[in-house]
C-alpha cells in the first residue's frame, strides 16, 4: 500500500483535479447539519464535521430510482446507464466506508448481485478522511473506526499535512495526476500519525459491549424492554432513513393513465413502517410497534451477525440523533444487558428491576427463533 503526504494548504488544488474522476461531492453545511453535496467553492467543504445527516448510501441506493421501463410494443429497457454517472465522494468517514463495505456483502457479494448498486459502486470514487468522534459516535465499539478497504484514498490529519493512503489503482491515478502536490512522508510523519491514531481511539467516549450480544438478545427475546420501546417509538422510520446500512426497499410499477407502458420503481422502505410486513389478505407479521422496533434491533445485532459474521451497525450515532423519541441504540443495548433502566434511556442506572426474567417455558433457546436478516 502506497502512503504519501499532501500539505493541507494545497488540498484545494488537489481537489480541483478530482472532477477528472467524476462529479465532486463533499461534506458541506446544510442548515444546522452537514450533507454530502456539491461545493460551490472550496471553503464550502467542511472536513471537520461530526456526521452528515444522511450517509453516503444515498449515492448507491437512491431514495427512489427507476430500474427499467416496460412497453407492450417496445418491451423492456433497463435503466442501468443511469447508474453509471461517475462521482467522487470526498471526505467520507471510516465508519461510513465500513457501512458501504457492509452493503457490499448484501448487494455485491451475495448470491444475487444488484447490477444498479454494482454500477454505482464501480463508478464512484471514495476519498476518506479521519473523524474526530463526539459523544454520539461509538464506531470504536463496532470496530468501524478504522477501515483498510473500500476507499480509493484515505486522508489522515497529521498537523500541517495529511497522510494519503492509496487504496486502489484509481486512487493511484489520482496521486499520479497530482504528483506535483504530493511528497514522501518522513519517519516523523509516521510517528505523528501513530500518536494521533492512539489519540483518536482514546477520544471515543461512548462504548457498547458487543461480545455475546447475539446470545443475550436470544435470551431477552421476551424482555419487557421491547414493550417499553414500542410505547415510545413513533414508527416514523427516521432511524432507518439515516442508517448507513439499512437497505430495505419497496418495489412498485408506475403505469401511465390509459397506457400499459410504465416503469418499475424502487424506493426506500423501513421495517418500522406498519406496511412493511403487511401481506395480501391483511395479515401483518409485525403489527405492533414493539415487534417492529424489536425486529430492527434483532436484524442489525443478531440476524446480520448470523448471516454475515458481524452486526450491521457502524456506530455513527445517526439513529439516536434523528430519533424524535430519544431512543438511543447504546442505551437499548445497555438495557438489554441489564445495565440500564428501561425508562431511563439516556442514563446508565444500574437498576435492572424492569427486566423480565426469562420464562422457564422458553428458556434460553426459544421455540421460535428471533427475527433474522430480511
Amino acid at each position, binding site marked *: 500500500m502506497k502512503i504519501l503526504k499532501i500539505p493541507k494548504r494545497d488540498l*484545494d488544488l488537489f481537489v*480541483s483535479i478530482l472532477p*477528472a474522476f467524476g*462529479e465532486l461531492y463533499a461534506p458541506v453545511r446544510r442548515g444546522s447539519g452537514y450533507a454530502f453535496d*456539491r*461545493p460551490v*467553492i*472550496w*471553503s464550502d467543504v467542511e472536513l471537520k464535521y461530526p456526521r452528515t445527516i444522511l450517509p453516503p448510501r444515498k449515492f448507491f441506493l437512491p431514495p427512489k430510482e427507476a430500474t427499467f421501463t416496460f412497453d407492450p410494443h417496445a418491451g423492456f429497457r433497463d435503466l442501468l446507464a443511469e447508474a453509471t454517472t461517475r462521482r467522487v465522494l470526498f471526505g467520507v468517514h471510516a465508519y461510513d466506508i465500513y457501512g458501504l463495505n457492509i452493503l457490499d456483502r448484501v448487494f455485491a457479494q451475495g448470491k444475487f448481485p444488484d447490477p444498479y448498486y454494482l454500477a454505482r459502486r464501480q463508478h464512484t470514487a471514495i476519498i476518506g478522511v479521519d473523524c474526530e468522534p463526539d459523544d454520539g459516535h461509538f464506531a470504536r465499539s463496532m470496530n468501524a473506526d478504522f477501515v483498510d478497504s473500500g476507499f480509493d484514498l484515505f486522508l489522515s490529519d497529521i498537523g500541517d499535512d495529511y497522510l494519503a493512503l492509496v487504496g486502489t489503482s484509481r486512487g493511484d491515478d489520482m496521486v499520479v*495526476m497530482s504528483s506535483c502536490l504530493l511528497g514522501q512522508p518522513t519517519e516523523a510523519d509516521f510517528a505523528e500519525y501513530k500518536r494521533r491514531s492512539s489519540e483518536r481511539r482514546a477520544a471515543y467516549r461512548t462504548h457498547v459491549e458487543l461480545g455475546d450480544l447475539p446470545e443475550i438478545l436470544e435470551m431477552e427475546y421476551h424482555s419487557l424492554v421491547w414493550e417499553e420501546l414500542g410505547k415510545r417509538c413513533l414508527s416514523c422510520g427516521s432511524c432507518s432513513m439515516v442508517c448507513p446500512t439499512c437497505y430495505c426497499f419497496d418495489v412498485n410499477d408506475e403505469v401511465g393513465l390509459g397506457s400499459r407502458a410504465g416503469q418499475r420503481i424502487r424506493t426506500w422502505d423501513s421495517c418500522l413502517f406498519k406496511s412493511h410486513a403487511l401481506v395480501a389478505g391483511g395479515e401483518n407479521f409485525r403489527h405492533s410497534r414493539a415487534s417492529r422496533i424489536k425486529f430492527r434491533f434483532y436484524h442489525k445485532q443478531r440476524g446480520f451477525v448470523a448471516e454475515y459474521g458481524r452486526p450491521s451497525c457502524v456506530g455513527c450515532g445517526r439513529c439516536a440523533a434523528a430519533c424524535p423519541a430519544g431512543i438511543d441504540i447504546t442505551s437499548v443495548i445497555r438495557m438489554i444487558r441489564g445495565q440500564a433502566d428501561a425508562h431511563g434511556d439516556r442514563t446508565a442506572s444500574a437498576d435492572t428491576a424492569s427486566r423480565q426474567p426469562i420464562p422457564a417455558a422458553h428458556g434460553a433457546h426459544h421455540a421460535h427463533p428471533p427475527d433474522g436478516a430480511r
Partner: protein
Amino acid sequence: MTKPKSVLIIDDDSDFVRAVGDLLTSAGYAVDSACNGRDGLSLAKTTQPDLILLDVMMTERTEGFFTLQQIRSVPALRHTPVIVASSIYTDQPSFKVNPDADWLPADLFLPKPIDPARLIQESARLIAASVAPESEASHVGSNGR
C-alpha cells in the same frame, strides 16, 4: 437584425472586466459580468450566455475550478464554451498540473495577461463550433463533461 452573441465574464478584477468587456463589446458581443463564482453561476443559469470567460483565483484561489464544475453540472450550460483565463500557473508555481481536458472541463485555457487579438479570434471560433455539436449532443444524450 440578429441578436448579438453574449459573453459572460466572471472575474473579480474590475479593471480586467472593464478592459476585456470593452474589447468584446467593440467586437459586437453583448457583455455581462459577475465578480465571483457564485454570482457568475447564478447569472449564467438565468442568461445562458453563448460564451463564458472565467477567472480562477477570485475570493479563493481555486474558485474558478469549482465554478466550472458547477457550470458543467447545469444541463443548459453543459456545452456552453468556457475559456478559463488565469495567472494561476505563475502565481502558484507548485501547481504543475497542466490545464488539459483530463481534469479541467474548459474549452480553452488562456494565461493572463490575455492577448486581445487571440481572445477575439478564439471567442468567435468557440461560439461557432458550439452550435452544431451542441444540438447533436443533445440528441444522443452525451454527458459532454
